[in-house]
């Protein structure tokens, strides 16, 4: 017999209690994995939105916490383009709208220039993009089109106005497939922001030392001044920073971390309770094990192995549960634009790490209690 077999038999022996403990850990780990997975997927999706287009810097208004409601004059684009080393500057306006009758409460609406290079990365499944002079026209990402049940030629209501759908596109990026893209002129008018944009995406020219170039450009962009010599309110963030400091992302990250901590605490208490009970119940048995030759250390190993096994089983069930949860969420129209149906392996490993932590936290004290039992006392225990 293997020691592992013995451990397994001990677990199976208290079937119901073990199952309930596993379930407790599974729910905790599942919730943590789902949330961490969503946060991570969100961040990576977001990042890829820029990285796939070679965007190195995001230029937004300085000093605003919520970037999507701050604006910059679109003419700044020209100033940026003139900086040596800048290859492309792509301005855009972003807003979120509720689409009446669809149940979708926050659909991202992007205002793009008709000739924007941003379109280059889109593959049109049907129809075409809009021309500069076209108004009240929209192109839809494939996910939003599916969720709205709309296709080329249909109309979609935005801000109380009807927009004709010119085409449906497939982007490399999950987020973008959940977006509606309209002419920036329309969006500027609808938001009443004249000729303002939310920000600019900056692609830099190839350079042997790209990092140095990016750093230099950051400095130069943030030092730009207006006609009267006043510093323009610009903040140029490296893409990764821009993404990780997005307020929504910060919020969901904070939430998922809090959930993980709660998961560890709840899971540990569950395992602790189970293991403590099983150590007390087996007082005499532990005395016997010691009498027939087991060392303290092996009793400790037995208790820890049992608690780790319980929590790892919980992790496996919980990870499946988390995967199912995110997959289901990605099918719900309301969340589909934000949630990818998969979870990164690193997050799944994080779930396992949580389980190991839970197993150790829940097992150490009972193991210590078990090791402290005096064999003669334990043998006399009724």
């Amino acid at each position, binding site marked *: 017999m293997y020691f592992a077999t013995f451990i397994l038999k001990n677990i199976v022996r208290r079937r119901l209690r073990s199952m309930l403990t596993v379930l407790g850990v599974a729910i905790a780990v599942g919730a943590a994995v789902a949330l961490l997975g969503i946060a991570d997927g969100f961040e990576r999706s977001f990042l890829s939105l820029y990285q796939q287009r070679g965007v190195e810097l995001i230029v937004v208004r300085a000093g605003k916490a919520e970037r999507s409601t701050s604006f910059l004059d679109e003419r700044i684009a020209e100033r940026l383009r003139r900086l040596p080393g800048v290859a492309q500057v792509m301005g855009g306006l972003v807003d979120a709208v509720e689409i009446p009758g669809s149940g979708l409460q926050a659909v991202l609406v992007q205002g793009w220039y008709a000739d924007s290079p941003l379109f280059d990365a889109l593959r049109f499944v049907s129809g075409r993009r809009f021309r500069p002079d076209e108004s009240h026209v929209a192109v839809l990402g494939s996910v939003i089109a599916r969720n709205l049940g709309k296709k080329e030629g249909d109309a979609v209501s935005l801000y109380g106005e009807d927009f004709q759908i010119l085409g449906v596109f497939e982007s490399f990026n999950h987020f973008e497939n959940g977006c509606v893209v309209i002419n920036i002129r329309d969006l500027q008018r609808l938001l009443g922001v004249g000729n303002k944009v939310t920000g600019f995406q900056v692609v830099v020219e190839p350079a042997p030392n790209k990092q140095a170039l990016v750093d230099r450009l950051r400095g130069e962009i943030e030092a730009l001044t207006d006609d009267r010599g006043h510093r323009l309110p610009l903040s140029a963030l490296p893409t990764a920073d821009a993404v990780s400091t997005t307020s929504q992302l910060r919020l969901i990250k904070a939430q998922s971390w809090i959930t993980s901590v709660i998961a560890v605490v709840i899971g540990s208490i569950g395992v602790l309770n189970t293991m403590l009970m099983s150590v007390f119940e087996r007082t005499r048995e532990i005395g016997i094990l010691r009498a027939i030759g087991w060392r303290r250390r092996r009793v400790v190993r037995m208790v820890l192995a049992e608690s780790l096994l319980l929590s790892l089983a919980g992790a496996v069930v919980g990870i499946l549960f988390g995967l199912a949860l995110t997959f289901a969420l990605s099918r719900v129209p309301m969340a589909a634009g934000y949630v990818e149906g998969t979870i990164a392996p690193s997050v799944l490993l994080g779930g396992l790490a949580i389980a190991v932590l839970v197993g150790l936290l829940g097992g150490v004290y009972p193991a210590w209690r078990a090791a402290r039992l005096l064999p*003669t006392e334990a043998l006399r225990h009724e």
Partner: protein
Amino acid sequence: MSDAVLVRSDHLCKTYPDGHVTALVDVNLRIGRGEYVAIMGPSGSGKSTLLNLLGALDRPTSGEIIFDGQPLSTLRDLDRFRAEKVGFVFQSFHLLPTLTALENVQIPMFEGRLSAAARARRAAALLDVVGMAHRLDHVPGQLSVGERQRVAIARALANDPVLLLADEPTGNLDSRTAADILALFDQLHREHGKTIVMVTHGQDVAERAQRILRMRDGRLLEP
């Protein structure tokens, strides 16, 4: 080094902290290598306490036990010593209920160096010695009490100890089954050269041993 004395106790005293029970008072004894000794005495006279001390399951309050020339007080790891040198047999068997006979016998072997397969082979061989070769895969609940005690004896032999300590091993058995178990102890003594110390309440049981030690109020009575 084959000293004729396997275990010796010098001025052994044991006081249990709770209630200040003095369980052993100045016990001096010698048990020869290969000897079969019975311990008798009224309930509470300290028999089990003495057995536990001889088996390094507990430490004396004062006095010394010299096992195989080695003073036990100098050992840091009594567990290891016990695993290698001593086998315990109890009145109520104390088998693990969910494990088969074969598995129960392997439990003490986890502390040894045998592989899982070797453990299983050795356990099967020991069960054969105690006449249980036909019940390897039965759990204790499926065995008669006599059979359970045989399995427990096989378990005590798991790490090939020099000393077998049995605390009323026939106390829960009817007289016929008891006779079988006692015959098994005889066999282990004669054929396998085990040193045996057995606590018993039965005069007839004790008489099978080579020597009877009598205890009263924590003291060893003069023979």
